[in-house]
């Protein structure tokens, strides 16, 4: 009977897999098939792996409780609570660095170095996004407490997504991140643009989630397990067309999350309509989570389909770099320009993934970290500009250096770094990516990357030219009516701290980037998943 077909495949796959790999993963299978509940309860949960997430969760609950006392109290107390929660989460993550590996929650979560690195990037991006959002949220008259709580929930989902090693955990954390992102992009509810952004994001995102669910149901049907390890083993022994179909479905969702062309259509509209601090989080935190998911599923699960997904990713990377950077040339809105540039930047990061070498993965991690600082620095500047002037049009930046040297300097440095001009942090990240790609003979990707980098430098520099070169009488009306620089309002100081911090790291980090290189290399070295993939691909290269 056809209705029993998928469950029948389960048994077949499980038998085949057990015959092929008797020892590895057998304990996991045994865990799931075990009938007696008593034995299961004796297994160690090893729940300390999610302590950083617990800190974020506690901060979220505390934020909600404080918010009950009214908007004034919330404005005063929500920021410190969020700082404490995210700060302790970062400290706990640092303690997990290079810790002995043990799967927690009976195989639902794994805190390897890759997960720790990406979770740190996400927690830091939330911290910086929150620092730059207080004044923005207050000025627009929206409730601050709920805003912080939803952003923390998104962080929680994104962080869990980085370490999830089970399809069910992956899906639930992905949904937590996505639903929170929809809510955040529609947070300026009286603004039609914000509602439009939320609606578009919701519709496209739900379709992507449905496609992911369909793909994972096929994977479950093939392997009889939701654990990514077991699925990976099962796929090695059965390279059926069904598995290829599952690969396409899963890859489409991953591409949606990292906004790779042609799954990018939502990005410009959502970025333009969402509150700017939310865009800052979406462009860094959400993207980092997407890349972590891509590594877990594609490298971890679809090792048998290495050539296929690498080919697909090459196409996606070439399209993303080309379209993102070329269309960014024509933008008049700063947010929209950064949206297209973020599509292009995701294309650069994909080069590292396609390589599949030690350097490639390390370059990915390094570039994500560099991108965190330079992109959030740029966002801090444009948020400050829009708080003072109420505009984000590129032409309104004309002649800004006369009135506000800090924004001019910060934005210039961050945009130069995004373009990859030495000696900024972004240059070293990009050169490492291209170096890894060249060493792996990905000539097409590297050449396209180099050409599109030059294009991107053109539009980044044209913004800087707009700010710096114009004579005072050529300045835009907005700049001519520029208000006095005033940092005394509540919420301005955190913005200043975030701006100066990001810009300083972007500017100086390039020269002192050795610790970052080491950090990225340790992240790859301390991750068994990536090490296996590297060993396999080098074996392939020899044979």
């Amino acid at each position, binding site marked *: 009977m056809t209705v029993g077909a998928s469950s*029948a495949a*389960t048994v077949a796959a499980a038998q085949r897999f057990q015959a092929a790999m008797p020892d590895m993963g057998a304990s996991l299978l045994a865990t799931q098939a075990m009938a007696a509940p008593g034995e*299961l*309860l004796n297994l160690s949960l090893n729940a300390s792996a999610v302590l950083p997430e617990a800190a974020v969760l506690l901060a979220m609950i505390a934020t909600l409780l404080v918010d009950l006392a009214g908007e004034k109290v919330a404005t005063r107390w929500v920021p410190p609570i969020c700082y404490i929660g995210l700060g302790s989460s970062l400290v706990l993550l640092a303690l997990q660095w290079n810790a002995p590996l043990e799967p927690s929650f*009976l195989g639902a979560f794994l805190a390897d170095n890759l997960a720790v690195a990406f979770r740190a990037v996400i927690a830091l991006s939330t911290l910086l996004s929150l620092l730059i959002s207080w004044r923005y949220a207050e000025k627009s*008259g929206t409730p601050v407490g709920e805003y912080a709580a939803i952003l923390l*929930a998104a962080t929680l989902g994104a962080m869990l997504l980085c370490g999830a090693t089970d399809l069910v955990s992956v899906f639930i954390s992905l949904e*937590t991140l996505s*639903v929170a992102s929809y809510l955040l992009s529609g947070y300026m509810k*009286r603004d039609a643009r914000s509602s439009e952004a939320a609606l578009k994001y919701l519709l496209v995102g739900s379709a992507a989630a449905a496609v992911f669910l369909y793909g994972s149901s096929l994977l479950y049907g093939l392997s009889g397990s939701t654990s990514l390890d077991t699925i990976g083993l099962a796929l090695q022994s059965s390279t059926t067309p069904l598995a290829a179909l599952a690969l396409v479905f899963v890859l489409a969702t991953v591409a949606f999350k990292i906004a790779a062309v042609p799954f990018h259509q939502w990005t410009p509209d959502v970025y333009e309509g969402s509150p700017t601090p939310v865009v800052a989080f979406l462009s860094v935190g959400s993207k980092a989570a997407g890349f972590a998911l891509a590594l877990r599923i594609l490298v971890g699960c679809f090792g048998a389909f290495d050539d296929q997904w690498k080919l697909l990713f090459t196409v996606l990377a070439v399209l993303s770099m080309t379209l993102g950077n070329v269309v960014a040339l024509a933008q008049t809105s700063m947010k929209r320009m950064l949206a297209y540039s973020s599509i292009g930047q995701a294309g650069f990061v994909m080069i590292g993934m396609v390589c599949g070498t030690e350097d490639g993965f390390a370059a990915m991690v390094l570039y994500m970290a560099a991108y965190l600082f330079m992109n959030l620095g740029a966002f801090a500047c444009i948020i400050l500009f829009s708080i003072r002037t109420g505009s984000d049009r590129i032409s309104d930046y004309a002649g800004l250096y006369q009135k506000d040297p800090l924004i001019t300097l910060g934005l210039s440095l961050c945009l130069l770094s995004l373009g990859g001009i030495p000696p900024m942090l972004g240059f070293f990240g990009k050169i490492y990516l291209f170096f890894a790609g060249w060493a792996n003979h990905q000539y097409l990707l590297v050449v396209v990357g180099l050409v599109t980098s030059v294009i991107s430098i053109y539009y980044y520099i044209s913004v800087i030219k707009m700010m710096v070169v114009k004579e005072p009488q050529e300045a835009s009306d907005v700049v001519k009516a520029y208000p006095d620089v005033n940092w005394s309002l509540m919420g301005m100081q955190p913005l200043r701290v975030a701006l100066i911090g990001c810009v300083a790291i972007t500017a100086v980090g390039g020269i002192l980037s050795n610790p970052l290189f080491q950090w990225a290399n340790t992240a790859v070295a301390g991750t068994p998943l990536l090490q296996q993939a590297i060993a396999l691909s080098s074996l392939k290269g020899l044979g």
Partner: protein
Amino acid sequence: MTIATTTELICFLVLSAVVVIGALGVVLLSNIVYSAFLLGGVFTAVAGLYLLLNASFVAMAQILVYVGAINVLILFAIMLVNKREDLKAIANLTTRRAVSAGVCAGLLALLVRVVVTTPWSLPGPPAVGEEATARIGEHLFTDYLLPFEVASVLLLMAMIGAIVLARRDVLATDVVTGEVADQGLIEKARTPLLMNRAE
């Protein structure tokens, strides 16, 4: 062929026909109320398929959640927004319909081909039957504990978000300066967008 397998086959054929025809109706009918009621029919028939597979817990959950909650909610939403509005005619509607029909037919052909070419091994594992509820509970508190707990965060956050978006703030102010705020983006639109502000 025994009477049991015949009955099962007949039930399966009837339920499948209801699912397929109902789903086509949901998509193709132009009256949204018909579509919503047909969707309820599809959900119920899918619950019937689960029962045929001896998964009574999933069948009940399907009825309670999808038919009882989600479908009723959809109907409520349709009834609350009872506004007749003549939408603008879409250009090249026939071509667009033909293209999307072609894409869907292609996807269907692909799926059918994959189902036919995949070497399924029959019969499948024996159904757990009445033990299923206990087994699901066991899983929820052992190997699926983490997703189960994260789901509660997801629901809490979705609830708060829905309230924030739906509640009516009569007067919004900047808490720090006391100025009146409009709860819109700080960057004001100066170019005409797809939608004009409804004020």
